[in-house]
């Protein structure tokens, strides 16, 4: 059995990227809550709109619900704990030198024990300038940093969907230099060639088309999976021992930081939002597996991979996925979402529309039968309605006052219809980008390495590190966790409303960075 992870982490210094993202934040929260024995965590982050990354991270952590367990476990001392353990460095992983001063880098690699790389761009069709920079070259630059450590170690968070356009069973492994469709290729040379080519292309759409063609040629369905896939192949050639964690669709937490926690937009959230709105035809293949995993299961796997890495275990790939050990399908999740929406409306529904919609179930209509109540069907209807409304003229028989009122109402209706039509077109495009995942392929991601890792935790840490993909009860998870969690944390993003946050603390959290503290910090 693996020794307690807290023992392995005692006195260790970790370099972490992507700590302000969905998975990274939950991982950090669990680390600080349950394993504060770690000596130091250096967060490499871009400052964004803040003068320094430390301010950005402090602001994000201060109000993030993901940090609630840290606050609960350490009480008033939670800020001191963060200030003692965290060290935030302004960095940009897309740059070869990570954009950090040489002396900071030197000090960092001399002291640190492992790199944990969460950062990445999860948009499915980003501008390849950003996608390649972040997902492929970012991973390469982090591996370069890791290779300078006393013991070169790296945990790399990838995605199951690097499997590309293949159906059936996907092994937890990688054949370096062989693309998903079996084409031998040199990943680094491909990335560098594409980088040079797109540098000369003026528009983002043209760059996307160019890289998309290269992705399809090698068997990847979109730029996200392509750039992440390239990263795995590139890392395989680096002088660093990499443990790769590949989550499938990461969704609401089952238990940590609390049931239902979610952040940002993942694949299931927008689909559930769609079901909870007026659309009734869902363009998915009902029998295909929908591989969803709770974020805390992903985080536990990352800890397991870290434990393996710190014990110098051989390199391995861990697929955090349910499609093999405990599959659910689009048909099941569509029905569960309808049932959950019905329950929500019955217990909390406020508007007539909510109550009415709750009495109509969604239909999973398949790939070849675009229904009238699907985004593409509705988009056509909206275009027709707009055209019709454009021809309507208020008769001059009405008096001046009545005519004025009628025209004003007509203008408002046209405007509303225009806005709704725009949103539906956006939704239509969103489903188009989801097509590889909801229609084209039926992947079965093996997860035996992951389950073995989740089973092999020390008894003293079972409460928070053990997990069982096979024991996930989809009905309970979907009705009690996934739908309520998405409703609270994801739907506001789709509705362009404010996502709830925790109140800022007084005094506000501040975090140390290179300008104020030494990297090694206090023991």
């Amino acid at each position, binding site marked *: 059995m693996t020794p307690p992870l807290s023992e392995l982490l005692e006195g260790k210094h970790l370099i972490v990227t992507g700590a302000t993202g969905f998975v990274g934040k939950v991982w950090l929260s669990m680390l600080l809550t349950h394993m504060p024995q770690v000596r130091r965590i250096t967060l490499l982050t871009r400052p964004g709109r803040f003068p320094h990354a430390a301010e950005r991270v402090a602001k994000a952590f201060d109000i993030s619900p993901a940090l609630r367990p840290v606050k609960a476990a350490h009480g008033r001392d939670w800020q001191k704990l963060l200030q003692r353990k965290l060290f935030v460095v302004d960095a940009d992983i897309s740059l070869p030198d990570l954009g950090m001063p040489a002396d900071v880098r030197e000090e960092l690699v001399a002291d640190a024990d492992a790199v944990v790389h969460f950062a990445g761009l999860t948009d499915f069709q980003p501008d390849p300038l950003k996608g390649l920079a972040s997902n492929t070259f970012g991973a390469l630059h982090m591996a370069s940093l890791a290779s300078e450590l006393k013991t070169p170690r790296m945990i790399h968070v990838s995605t199951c969907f690097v499997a590309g356009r293949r159906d059936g069973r996907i092994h937890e492994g990688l054949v370096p230099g062989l693309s998903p469709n079996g084409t031998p290729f040199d990943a680094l040379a491909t990335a560098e060639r594409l980088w040079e080519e797109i540098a000369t292309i003026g528009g983002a759409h043209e760059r996307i088309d160019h890289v998309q063609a290269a992705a399809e040629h090698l068997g990847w369905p979109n730029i996200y999976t392509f750039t992440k896939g390239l990263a795995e192949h590139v890392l395989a050639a680096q002088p660093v021992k990499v443990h790769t964690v590949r989550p499938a669709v990461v969704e609401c937490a089952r238990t940590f930081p609390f049931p239902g926690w979610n952040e940002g937009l993942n694949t299931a959230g927008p689909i559930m939002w769609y079901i909870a709105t007026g659309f009734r035809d869902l363009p998915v293949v009902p029998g295909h597996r929908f591989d969803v995993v709770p974020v805390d299961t992903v985080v536990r796997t990352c800890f397991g991979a870290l434990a393996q890495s710190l014990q110098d275990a051989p390199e391995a790939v861990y697929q955090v996925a349910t499609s093999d050990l405990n599959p659910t399908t689009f048909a*099941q999740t569509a*029905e*569960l979402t*309808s*049932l959950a929406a*019905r*329950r929500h409306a*019955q*217990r909390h529904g406020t508007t007539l529309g909510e109550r009415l919609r709750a*009495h*109509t*179930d969604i*239909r999973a209509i398949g790939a070849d039968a675009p229904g009238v109540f699907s985004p593409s069907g509705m988009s056509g209807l909206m275009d027709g309605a707009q055209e019709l409304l454009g021809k309507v003229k208020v008769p001059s028989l009405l008096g001046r006052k009545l005519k004025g009122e009628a025209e004003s109402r007509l203008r408002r209706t046209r405007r509303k219809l225009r806005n709704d039509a725009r949103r539906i077109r956006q939704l239509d495009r969103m489903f188009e980008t989801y097509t590889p995942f909801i229609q084209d392929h039926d992947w079965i991601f093996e997860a035996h390495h992951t389950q073995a890792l989740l089973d092999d935790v020390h008894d003293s840490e079972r409460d928070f590190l053990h997990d069982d993909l096979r024991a996930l009860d*989809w*009905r309970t998870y979907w*009705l009690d966790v996934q739908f309520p969690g998405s409703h609270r944390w994801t739907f506001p993003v789709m509705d362009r409303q404010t996502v709830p946050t925790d109140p800022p603390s007084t005094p506000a959290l501040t975090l140390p960075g290179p300008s104020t503290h030494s990297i090694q910090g206090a023991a």
Partner: protein
Amino acid sequence: MTDSAAFFRLEGVLFSVDPAAVAAWLALRDAQPGDRLKGIGRVFLGALTSSTLGGLGADARTLSEWSFTDGWTTDRWLSLCEDWVHAHKTSRALAAGHDLLHRAVTHGDRVVVISSLPRTLAEALLEGLPVDELVADTIATDDRGLLTGELTGDGLRGRIDGTWLQRYARAHHLNPALSAGYGHSGGDVPMLSAVGRPCAVSPTLSLRRQAHQFRWPVVEARP
């Protein structure tokens, strides 16, 4: 045979529920409007058969009133059962029946509840009550995990008679003469006749007549 039991009818004694109304509530929540109409038709047919054919119809009614679940997923069935129980459990509870149940526990009786509702619903309603055994049927599932709409199990579709009670008493070393029975409708008469301490709870007209004839005590229970 020295131990005693208390046999409770769930419907009308512990909770004010009519299985046909529950079935209709659930049938109305089928996935598509067409299925809802068909489901309601099946429930209505079951209720009609029961009221016109009496005892013979009770079997047919119980059979058909849940047959609308044919082809349902267990997800839909369990989720909607939870929703029904969440919406109705508190308002349908009969305090007087619950009081009788607690008294039976104090008396040292083995508490047996008999229900015409499918087990999932009956179990959810009884959760938190000190019940030793529930006699109810389950809706069968096929090898794909879908419901077939047919009731299975030893629940006798909610109807028990003196023979069943005698057999049950022998199997559990109970003395029927020392046992109590709490019924609500005419269908409970065989059960009440087989125990030494019968009681009619908010009885229907037919049971009220029988209770009066046999001088069984009558308790009124209101939700």
